[in-house]
């Protein structure tokens, strides 16, 4: 990471800090302040989008650990999220477990299931692993669909909003603070993880797993750890999703969702801490405004097209965005941002 001109490190402590200059501190504090008062000036119709972004971001950060840092493809992330969602719903609904405990257990259970489907990663990679995780997605959803005694099949489960120590999170504003607390924790966790021994081992495995093994990294252990952590965060996201939505069924966690998360990550930028944030915010905002505002508007104005044409628009633009990003900027928007920052620092001497 390059530092602005004139900034030097005088101790190891300052060298490893995430936020290093005064300007960065000021910007960071301003951003956190803006985020914490966001609910008070946000229009009502945007709450749903913002809260969904918060939840999805946790899942995508998890996927980033797995895919961005460790290089293990998971096409079943929505399935792991479903496990978290159902565990949490059943624990809080049937067994009256306190929400925070249920949240952690649902993370753990998703992580454990993730471990099982991560085992093939020892022997296979690339496309084989992708197919194994596709199978994971379909098997998990099938079980949730057919184990009707517990999951109630297509009727789905009703979930009460979370409550912590008798404090009910029953409005969108309260939900915002609940969700974003966990979002910030998981983003910070992932950022720091990437800079630790574990994170470096992940990156070594991603770049060349044989070489990593020769260097003395226990590849199997770290691959499984990556699966566990990635799916753990997916489980947390699922749990938050369940209590936010109030009703879950297996149909909420489709294969398309899994691809959506991968797409968000690729568009944002694999293997960077900024990538998931950019990807999730931009794609989710686009998606919501497309379905809720632009698509109905197009349908009403362009009546010469067959009715319902706009439903394809969403998928088409999203697919196109993935293709374009992969062709022109495989490192995603985060890299573009980094390029912009460095050229801004060097300006007007761009070389």
């Amino acid at each position, binding site marked *: 990471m390059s530092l602005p001109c004139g900034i030097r490190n005088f101790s190891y402590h300052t060298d490893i800090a995430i936020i290093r200059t005064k300007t960065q501190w000021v910007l960071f504090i301003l951003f956190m302040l803006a985020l914490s008062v966001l609910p008070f000036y946000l229009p009502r119709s945007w709450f749903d989008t913002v809260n969904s972004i918060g939840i999805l971001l946790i899942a995508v950060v998890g996927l980033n650990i797995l*895919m961005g840092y460790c*290089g293990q*493809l998971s*096409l079943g992330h929505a399935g792991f999220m479903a496990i978290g969602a159902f565990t949490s719903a059943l624990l809080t609904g049937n067994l009256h477990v306190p929400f925070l405990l249920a949240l952690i257990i649902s993370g753990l259970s998703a992580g454990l299931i993730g471990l099982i*489907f991560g*085992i*093939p990663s020892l*022997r*296979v*990679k*690339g*496309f*084989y692993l*992708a*197919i*194994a995780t*596709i*199978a*994971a997605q*379909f*098997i998990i959803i*099938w079980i949730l*669909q*057919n184990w009707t005694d517990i999951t109630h099949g297509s009727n789905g489960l009703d979930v009460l909003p979370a409550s912590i120590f008798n404090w009910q999170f029953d409005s969108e504003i309260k939900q915002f603070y609940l969700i974003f607390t966990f979002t910030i924790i998981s983003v910070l966790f992932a950022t720091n993880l990437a800079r630790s021994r574990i994170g470096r081992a992940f990156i070594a495995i991603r770049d*060349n797993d*044989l*070489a990593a093994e*020769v260097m003395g990294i226990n590849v199997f252990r770290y691959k499984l750890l990556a699966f566990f952590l990635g799916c753990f965060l997916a489980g947390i996201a699922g749990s938050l999703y369940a209590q936010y939505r109030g009703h879950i069924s297996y149909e909420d966690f489709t*294969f*398309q969702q899994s*691809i959506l998360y*991968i*797409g968000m990550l*690729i568009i944002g930028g*694999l293997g960077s801490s900024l990538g998931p944030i950019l990807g999730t915010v931009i794609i989710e905002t686009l998606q919501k405004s497309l379905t809720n505002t632009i698509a109905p508007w197009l349908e009403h104005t362009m009546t010469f097209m*067959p*009715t*319902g*044409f706009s*439903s*394809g*628009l*969403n*998928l*088409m*633009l*999203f*697919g*196109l*965005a*993935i*293709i374009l990003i*992969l*062709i022109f900027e*495989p490192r995603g928007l985060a890299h573009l941002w980094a390029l912009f920052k460095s050229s801004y620092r060097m300006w007007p001497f761009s070389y």
Partner: protein
Amino acid sequence: MDILIQNIITGTATGMVYALIALGFALIWKSSRVANLALGQLVLISSWFAYSMLVQFKFPFWLGMLLTIAFAILLGWLIERLALRPLIGQPILSLIAITLGLAYFLEGLTAFIWPQGQGNLPKVFPQTSFQIGPAMIQQELLWAAVISLILFILLSVFFKYHRMGIAMRATADDQLAVQACAVPVNRVFSMSWIFACVVAAIGGVLISSIAAINYGLVETGFKSFSVVILGGMESFLGCIVAGPIIGLCETFGGSQFGSSVKELIPFIIIVIVIMIKPFGLFGEERIERI
């Protein structure tokens, strides 16, 4: 007993349909080592195109089918030229991701042009069913099986003896060495995508004339992955052998454990194969070096 024979026949025939789609996958993998996850979507879009030709514009069957194949050729060429070629030499993750992007894009495009969600092709084959011993079989399924066998033989012969086929195999093996021997690698890639799209179009028209054109075709594409995994990714023979195996497992599993289990079986097979014999029945094990 009757039911047993009936199950064997239905299972084999449905399995051949999966095999047909899987052939398109193996084709691309064999020549360019790209895993095409947009398999089902290619089937979907070419079936809808055939629908437009045959139902909306009311062309005679032979003309509609010719146009559909022409469309598939164009589609394959465009996909390779615009999406895949810029990514030559990129890591496998990008290659998988771009086919996912492609899958999304094609699905969106179909929903954009044909938002009706459901279409019925005119019946290609006679509707009467065959009697084989005590069992019945839909003639359409039988034809699908025959056509996938023919395609299998054609493709195998092509890859074994034709110059282009040999070039394709060589390209998969070592792109740089092949380039040094003046093989036009770009054309090899183009050709493989074009072939794959044509196979997908034929498969699509067959399946959708049996059932209907809808998003089920995409799911049939997912099931075909189990054929690819079980058979081994680069083997046409693997597809033809594994297809009926999957079909039989589905039918027998369904009749043993109830019809909802049927949907699960291909995916269970994927997991088992990947855990035990990841390179499938006829696939070659790849040994890596640092």
